[in-house]
């Protein structure tokens, strides 16, 4: 991939986080480059979700820095960070359960927290159109008026992705977005993701399913006990015997 610094969207440098005595993130430095799908892998409790939480401001780092397009975002509240262009999904989805699918999408497209949205009537129409388009692409169009809570499992997963697509975020952080999906569904899911990346978003994804990891990664970062053990080309990382011993097990590619 490109080593050019100008393309680094998000730079994590020497990041640390402890809970009480437990060091969950240990001196992690990682660059995320534009247009690249980085996969975060590692054993359970390695600190992957924690890393997401640190980036999005749900947790504050004990030390270290996070730069977004060259500017530090440490200490900003999570809604501010979201507005910088970093969107995330949650391991437990956290959809807006009692709103319809369409409302779920519309609401994340509306930037202002005050009573009026910029753009007036035309802006609203544009947003509605885009929402329909996104729903069509995620195969949720016929469920537009269904409440999120009434969706089937796979549909909920797709809605979670659609909701992120609806933001203008440049960078997506996806926490096990495809877990529990059957094969047909996750293929669809990955296709969608690839298309988006081609159109310019940058993705960081946490995943345990090796088929998916292999299917989508441009680059793999391997975390263990809060430490970044490896970071690079999928083949190299997947074939590392040491990592296989602690994580991939016998089926490493």
């Amino acid at each position, binding site marked *: 991939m490109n080593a050019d610094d100008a393309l680094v969207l998000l730079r994590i440098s020497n990041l640390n986080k402890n809970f009480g005595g437990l060091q969950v993130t240990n001196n992690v430095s990682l660059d995320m480059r534009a247009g690249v799908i980085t996969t975060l892998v590692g054993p359970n409790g390695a600190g992957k979700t924690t890393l997401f939480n640190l980036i999005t401001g749900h947790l504050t780092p004990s030390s270290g820095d996070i730069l977004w397009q060259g500017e530090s975002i440490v200490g900003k*509240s999570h*809604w501010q960070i*979201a507005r910088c262009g970093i969107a995330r999904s949650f391991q437990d989805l956290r959809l*807006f359960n009692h*709103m319809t699918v369409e409302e779920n999408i519309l609401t994340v497209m*509306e930037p202002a*927290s*005050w009573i009026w*949205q910029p753009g007036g009537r035309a802006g609203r129409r544009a947003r509605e159109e885009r929402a329909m388009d996104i729903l069509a692409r995620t195969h949720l169009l016929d469920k537009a008026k269904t409440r999120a809570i009434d969706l089937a499992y796979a549909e909920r997963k797709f809605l979670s992705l659609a909701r992120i697509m609806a933001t203008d975020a440049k960078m997506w952080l996806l926490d096990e977005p495809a877990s529990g999906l059957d094969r047909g569904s996750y293929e669809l899911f990955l296709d969608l993701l690839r298309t988006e990346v081609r159109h310019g978003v940058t993705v960081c994804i946490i995943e345990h399913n090796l088929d998916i990891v292999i299917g989508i990664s441009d680059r793999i970062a391997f975390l263990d006990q809060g430490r970044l053990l490896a970071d690079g080309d999928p083949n190299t990382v997947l074939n590392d015997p040491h990592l296989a011993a602690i994580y991939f097990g016998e089926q490493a590619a």
Partner: protein
Amino acid sequence: MLAYLLNLATLICINAVLAITLNFIMGYAGIFSMAHAVFFGVGAYTAAYFALNVSASLFLAIPVAMVVAAALSLVLALPALRVRGEYFVAASLGLQVLGVTIFAEWKSFTGGLGGVIGIPPADLFGHAVSDPVAFLMLAAGCLVLVILITNALLRSSFGRNLKAIRDSESAAHAFGKNVAVIKTLSVVISSALAAVAGALYAFYLGFINVESFMLDTSVLLMAMVIIGGTGTLMGPVVGTVLLMLLPSLFSYMWFLPQTEIGAIQQIAYGTAMVLLMIFRPGGLVGSGKNGVVK
């Protein structure tokens, strides 16, 4: 008889405004306030004070009442930003009790238990609205206005923001919603509109005292909303009409002993609340299943 019906209709309008504004924060923002009567009271006292000392003009008294209530509602927004669910209920209960104590003790402004007496009739374009029919029109007009305003807000992006927060605060955050602003705004709007009801009430009765703004009122309002259907548009109105009519029915049952009517009304209330919650937990207008909330 006519006078009686007019009176009932006017009170229904006033209470419906309160129920609608409560539903606005309860059903859509997930802020379950047990202190709504306080803002009702603030509106009423402010309007009364203003009418007695400055002018009884509706176009002045109501805005002033709204502004004062809106400003004070920031106190309620404070815990709303910190905690959710039952904790907020407790905090708002605290505010309710505090409000009642202040209403009862700040005698120079509220007259304490004795109340404010001699409030002049409301003044609309130079005419005193004292005729019951005219006042009913006025109250109904305000009700319609409040319904229109809240509806417009709820259909707008603001309404979606509220619901998003109700469903998952952390996700709302993660999608760039300034939860603090949204919550505060909803509380402010709801309280300001509740103050309209307060002002109407003060002008209507010509007398107000702390008894109208106690916990019972907040509880009753909450019951109106939940029985009608939380988070529905017409639910609060239906709930209000039901809970206001129920007691009047009993006053027509001549065989009930005069001194026990009050108690029997209350028991009927209570029973209605229990049975409805068992058999129609989503409220009369709700979906049958429980409408909202974790």
